[in-house]
């Protein structure tokens, strides 16, 4: 999978990603699905996420996957393909797409795990295709594409940063 460093997504990208996540959530019979970048930031989610604190969930999931990857290397494995947490009521299935993103699937005790693994595998491929398309998109050239400033931000000034810290 291509690198998604300095990841930028637009409306149409998010629609494709959301559609893919919703389908996975439905087919895996999961209550929620999160797409997270491997540095710990939430990219998108589907399902019942209102009662979830998704920001620390994303951060801790990335930490867990990073630790699993490092453990795998210590044991001479290239990677562990997924991490699974099994609680009394909730279960978590974490897996890496390519080397850049993580899919978190939140489950209950009634979910059939083989079904989840099958669906995650299937939708991971679809998600990889989306990321490949994103990476193929030409970089916005200054003054031509949808650059940061042309999207309405303009130049970030000292005052902008000062204002961020004023209201703390």
């Amino acid at each position, binding site marked *: 999978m291509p690198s*998604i*460093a*300095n*990841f*930028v*997504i*637009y*409306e149409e*990208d*998010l*629609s494709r990603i959301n559609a893919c996540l919703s389908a996975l959530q439905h087919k895996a019979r999961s209550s929620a699905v999160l797409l997270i*970048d*491997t*540095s*710990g*930031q939430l*990219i998108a989610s589907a399902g019942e996420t209102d009662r979830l*604190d998704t*920001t*620390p969930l994303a*951060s*801790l999931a990335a*930490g867990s996957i*990073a*630790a699993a990857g*490092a453990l795998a290397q210590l044991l001479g494995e290239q990677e562990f393909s997924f991490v699974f947490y099994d609680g009394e009521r909730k279960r978590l299935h974490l897996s890496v797409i390519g080397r850049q993103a993580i899919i978190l699937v939140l489950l209950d005790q009634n979910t059939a795990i083989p079904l989840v693994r099958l669906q995650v595998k299937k939708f991971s491929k679809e998600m990889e295709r989306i990321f490949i398309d994103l990476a193929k998109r030409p970089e*916005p050239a200054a003054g031509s594409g*949808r*650059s*940061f*400033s042309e*999207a*309405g*931000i*303009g*130049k*970030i000034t*000292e005052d*902008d*940063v*000062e*204002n*961020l*810290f004023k*209201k*703390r």
Partner: protein
Amino acid sequence: MSFINYAAREINCKLVYYGPGLCGKTTNLQYIYKMVDPGTKGKLISLATETERTLFFDFLPLELGTVRGFKTRFHLYTVPGQIFYEASRKLILKGADGVVFVADSQIDRVEANIQSLADMNQHLKEQALDPEKIPLVVQYNKRDLPKVVPIDELQKALNPRNLPWFEGIAPEGKGVFETLKALAKLVLQELQRKT
């Protein structure tokens, strides 16, 4: 890895506090957590040992407001400072947009600071981040303690490029927000330059 979501008009940045054991990285985050408005912060998550030493990382998400209409989130992380947690430190640096190097100003911690800085530069490279280019701010913490190294000596040893630096007394908040603000500014400028 900064993440710009044009659909939701959000900017997300990852900032990492790095430094030797007991230099005050977690104390910086705790002070920020204590002082910011409840509406602008998430939970402070500390993966720590029973003796409150950082085991894996601390994490504090901050949503301080908007920059030019974009909701701006900073995700603050600390690394575990103790020498034997090297593998964990490397993992936390993944995708960092900016780093605060927190130095311990005490005379007997000079070697630990130098070693930690070298370790940081090495791990940044391993994460495909250029130590010469990544936004970096230095905080000389513990300035209130009796046996501290003069600032000019610390500068020579730890900050020869004269990057932005601040004196800190983290439990009292001295230098804490100044450091964060300086890094936020560098990171946003870098983000603008890249996009």
